[in-house]
């Protein structure tokens, strides 16, 4: 306590310099917190959009590695060149059985799908899109499509055998609306008429223009794939289990199972790089603030050389002298961290209120801010570390001062 009191007294008596140094730390901490809140907010916002847009785990009708030929299973030396495997009908076989086996252990919901390319025609206009055949009530369990519905109802697909839900942008391009009947043509040339029962808007243009939902049976007929599905979407209670669930499902069924993390691996790595850049910038800001502290503590050491000699002559060991000046750096660091946390919160709160109106969309959006105690803890710890280092260098010099030199100089 005595050392802290001496340190605090030194700092207090240099009020102007202390305020300037404290402001330096506070600005560093404040901007770090605001920047971290903004960066993580945008990351979370992006991730949540992404996670909602794709299944947590998707089991596809393909294998991760080509199937081994019978001869190569037996003989290691067998090598095939120019192999042309027989045409195999794509699709997940025995979907009912596969789904039942997954339901036994997967903690979440799942839905089967059959996707394929089709051309949507209405009043002489054509649009190519991905047609997804779904069991509506199951699909609602795994996707957020219900929340994206702008008009009509997704559940109406259940009641209408040839119902169709399309994106609002696609409808806009065709000039079609709910209740209109459109024609869908498959790649094999099979055509069927569907009635639009709902329009959705996800905010992702590629989806809003290029995806349509229809009952699974109707799509199986259109694509000529009876009783076949080509993917199973899984929504987990805990999305962090996705990798484990995907690996187990793949082992169990033999089909490729992709977790949302694997599907976005490149993006995840980009986020890591982005976070490294962010914390480097934050660190740089605090290092600059550290120079301010170094400056003031060095000045105090210079001005207080006589006091150092007095304390040493009184019997304060070198360690005490060093601690006093490190504490001075820390006192400024703590004050700066407290003020900076307040500033960071104020800045983050303000940024959260900033809104942008884009001319290309009807939506009004705002800066995504994520408030997290961790940001404050990291910024404050970095500030305190920077302060301690900034104080330590002049403190070490102070501890090594020879009291006799100073006393002689004074007399």
């Amino acid at each position: 306590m005595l050392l802290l009191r001496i340190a605090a007294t030194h700092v207090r008596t240099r009020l102007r310099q202390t305020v300037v140094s404290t402001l330096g730390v506070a600005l560093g901490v404040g901007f770090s917190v605001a920047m971290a809140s903004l960066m993580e907010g945008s990351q979370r916002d992006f991730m949540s959009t992404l996670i909602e847009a794709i299944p947590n785990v998707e089991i596809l009708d393909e294998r991760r590695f080509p199937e081994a030929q019978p001869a190569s299973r037996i003989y290691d030396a067998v090598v095939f060149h120019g192999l042309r495997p027989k045409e195999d009908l794509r699709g997940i076989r025995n979907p009912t059985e596969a789904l039942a086996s997954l339901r036994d252990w997967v903690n979440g919901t799942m839905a089967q799908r059959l996707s394929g390319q089709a051309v949507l025609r209405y009043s002489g206009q054509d649009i190519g899109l991905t047609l997804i055949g779904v069991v509506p009530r199951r699909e609602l369990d795994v996707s957020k499509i219900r929340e994206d519905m702008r008009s009509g109802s997704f559940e109406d697909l259940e009641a209408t055998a040839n119902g169709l839900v399309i994106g609002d942008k696609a409808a806009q391009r065709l000039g079609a609306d709910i209740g209109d009947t459109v024609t869908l043509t498959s790649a094999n040339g099979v055509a069927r008429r569907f009635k639009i029962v709902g329009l959705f808007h996800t905010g992702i243009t590629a989806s809003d223009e290029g995806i349509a939902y229809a009952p699974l049976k109707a799509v199986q007929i259109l694509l000529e794939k009876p009783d076949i599905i080509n993917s199973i979407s899984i929504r987990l209670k805990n999305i962090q289990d996705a990798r484990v669930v995907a690996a187990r499902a793949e082992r169990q069924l033999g089909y490729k199972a992709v977790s949302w993390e694997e599907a976005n691996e490149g993006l995840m790595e980009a986020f890591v790089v982005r976070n490294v850049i962010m914390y480097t910038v934050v660190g740089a800001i605090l290092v600059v603030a550290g120079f301010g502290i170094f400056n003031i503590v060095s000045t105090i050491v210079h001005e207080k050389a006589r006091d150092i000699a007095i304390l040493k002559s009184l019997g304060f060991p070198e360690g005490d002298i060093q601690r006093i000046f490190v504490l001075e750096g820390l006192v400024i660091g703590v004050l700066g961290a407290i003020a900076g946390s307040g500033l960071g919160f104020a800045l983050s709160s303000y940024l959260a209120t900033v809104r942008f109106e884009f001319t290309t969309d009807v939506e009004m959006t705002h800066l995504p801010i994520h408030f997290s105690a961790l940001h404050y803890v990291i910024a404050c710890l970095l500030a305190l570390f920077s302060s301690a280092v900034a104080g330590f260098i002049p403190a070490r010099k102070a501890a090594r001062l020879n009291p006799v030199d100073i006393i002689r100089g004074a007399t």
Partner: protein
Amino acid sequence: MSNPPAPGRAKAPLLEARKLTRILPAVVPVTLVEDVDFEIGEAEFVAITGPSGSGKSSLLYLLGLLDRPTGGEVLIEGQRTDDLSSAELAHLRLEKLGFVFQFHFLLPEFTALDNVMIPMQRLGKLSPKAQLDHATDLLAELGLKDFLHRRPEQLSGGQRQRVAVARSLANAPDLILADEPTGSLDSASTEQVFQSLQKIVETEQTTVVAVTHDLDLAARMERRIHLVDGRIDYDRRL
């Protein structure tokens, strides 16, 4: 040169210098103190005198363990100090020694009371209440009862020096080392400070070793060690 033993001494002397030498390393080394031998016992009032540059202050810094000798050694109560670490020396200074310098050397941001209490707080032997009471008593005994809460800048030169004397007594040291304690004071203040030191020797049985160039003051002390060119010219009881 004589080296009289202190009267009534049975145990190890309080302070002992053996062949004490301090040479400043330089292109041409400068000898500050050379082959100084003496013993000082309890409750002695010793003056170290000598012309300017004779090594008086250098000798005091060596005795006060603020500087390390290049030869010889300092013993306190028979304990060698040359092999002690800087932290151990600091603790010895805190517990057994008190300093009074020519300039008061008080901590300017702290009050008189704080300045006296700081060594006690560092040693931590007394409770906070006892520290406060002891510091108040010391300052009151030195006639500073009404100036407890004044900072050094609000005190006169003599008052500051008496606060420094009170501070040197804070941990009830066995030995007070004073370097020209009245050097910067007028005659009235000089008398006050001198009497304070004399009273310490008489009432507290504390040894005071004071460097002074004031021969009148030195003549009032019971023993004088006179240095010339870093060596003891004479050491005699008065």
